[in-house]
């Protein structure tokens, strides 16, 4: 397993959250939607023209922008 940013995972590739660089209010919102250390995340798809990512964390689907997803470090599974 290698450590990458969530934005670097391939679509459909699973990762396990290791760390989040997000500033305080955003970090809290991430946590409230289920982004916590040790949780499994998987990018599902990306919108056109460099739009946001759809990411599944636990049973929840969220959308977030690539640059925000880059704040989340994950262990990538093959």
């Amino acid at each position, binding site marked *: 397993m290698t450590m990458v940013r969530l934005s670097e995972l391939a679509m459909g590739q699973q990762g396990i959250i290791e760390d989040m660089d997000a500033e305080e209010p955003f970090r809290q*919102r991430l946590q*409230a939607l289920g982004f916590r250390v040790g949780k499994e995340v998987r990018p599902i798809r990306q919108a056109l023209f460099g*739009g946001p990512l759809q990411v599944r964390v636990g049973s929840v689907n969220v959308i977030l*922008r690539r640059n925000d997803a880059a704040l989340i470090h994950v262990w990538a599974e093959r």
Partner: protein
Amino acid sequence: MPNTGKSTFFNRLTGASARIGNWPGITVDLLSAKILLGAEMVEVVDLPGLYDLHGFAEDEQVVRRFLQNNPVDLLCLILNATQIDQQLPLTLQLCRLGLPAVAVLNMADEAERLGIRFDTGALAAGLGCPVCHVSAKYGQGFPETRDTLRRVLGQYPPTDLQALQADFAADEALIAEAEKLLARSVTIPRILEHDLTERIDRIVLHPLLGIPLFLIALFVLFQAVYTLGGPLQDGMAWLLTEFRDLALAPLRAILPGWLYGLLVEGLYDGLGTVASFVPIIVLFFLGMALVEDSGYLSRIAFLMDALMAKLGLDGRGFVMLLMGFGCNVPALMGTRVMRSRGLRLLTMLIIPFSLCSARLQVFVFLTTALFSPAQAPVVLFALYVLSFLTAFATALLFKSRIGAATEPLLIELPPYRLPTLGQVALRAWHEVHHFLSRASRFIIAGVVMIWLLTHLPPGATAGGPDTLAGLFGGWLEPLLRPIGIDQRMAVVLLFGFVAKEIVLGAMAVVYGLEGDALAQLMAQQMDWAQAFSFMLFTLLYTPCLSTVATLRGESRSLAFTGFSIAWSLALAWLVSLVFYQGARLLGF
């Protein structure tokens, strides 16, 4: 928490008797209703959904302040049973506030289908409060929930506010406790796929098909409203005219001339012209309710975010613009979810350009009167496109000045849910009710006022240049003649500033005609370039006084409100000028 069916639960519990009330310590309106629970009258308040208690969004602060400043006797927490793993930490925080609480697991039916099993006893013991299962949508579990609420309310003495405020510090350690409790009391299958949702998303959010599909959906919705609404509207207009001829015309012999004029030619014709558009408004809101309740709105935010980012906005701003198609006021209030002030102000600046249902009825009337049946829908669609374009241009122009700081975008995509007929009907009813109550407030007063202005001083020719209205129109004329708007239409625009719902009523009174006769006269009075110029101006200048009041309330800035009004007036005049003079130069 958002997307838990909280409002559905609230409406079912209270029998949809919800009213807007004001609350101490809070600047926004919350829905509340009084219901009989056992032998006691209980006031139920619908608080906004939230993701955590320490949030910085206004909704989250509203909830915090409400709980700190009002003696709440019982906290009823609505959870989404299918997302219990995400929601339990906040639930635990709320339960530990020291308030009596009941946790209601909504969408119990959906959770059961997904194979989620609850050990209700363990969950209740861990949370320290009773747990109920309901399906707010279909009404299962409500008698038991009512019983539980009544029992818990009876157990506790009234809440002591001081003691509560002291307790109001939540603890990070609770989150770890929540995880443990979750592991102990809930079994969730490892792969939880909303299979159907994923299959729909594969098409709807397709990288290439997504945006075209959205545009097609919008066009279909709009065509459906227009084709279904047209005949209904004709029927309604026919009914109103028949009633006038059969029941009201004989009054002419009994009533004095001025009173008959005021009541029938003023009030009835004015209101009737507006009322004939109610079927279209109902259909329109039915469509909007369907889109909103299905879960498609957050997908639109996903599709449009890249474009909106270039304008200094985000995907949510686009969704607010769409909501503005119904009414600008709730769309403006919807910007509360944005934390960055710059982003919020920029979004609020563009919402008034979205073509709301009140403007829609003016446009439907004029396009039908002045364009052929084949052209009319195209003209209407062009106005929608212009509505978007002016909104986008405004954002582009002012994004650096207002300084829309980027804020992280994080939105949940809820699974698709097919709203029940009852839900959609209820939503549409609420909207129509809102429209009609606004209408009765503004239109009656407006129409009477216009009748007086077009008939005073006594002896003046009705609607002529020597009446008060003619006088005002005369003052405005030098300003409006270059955009092809005459004295009489200037008076109509003047009243349109109060609310666009009045515009048609005002035309009916100013010209002393209604329905088809009015439409025919408009076709003689104006050519298509004048009519389109008038519609452009109506589309772009300040929507209504309610919007202005909401802008002021939400931005808490007079300067911003003034700027928004000035910009929309200037833009309206400029766009109409360029169009009208351009059309004339080209020889139309």
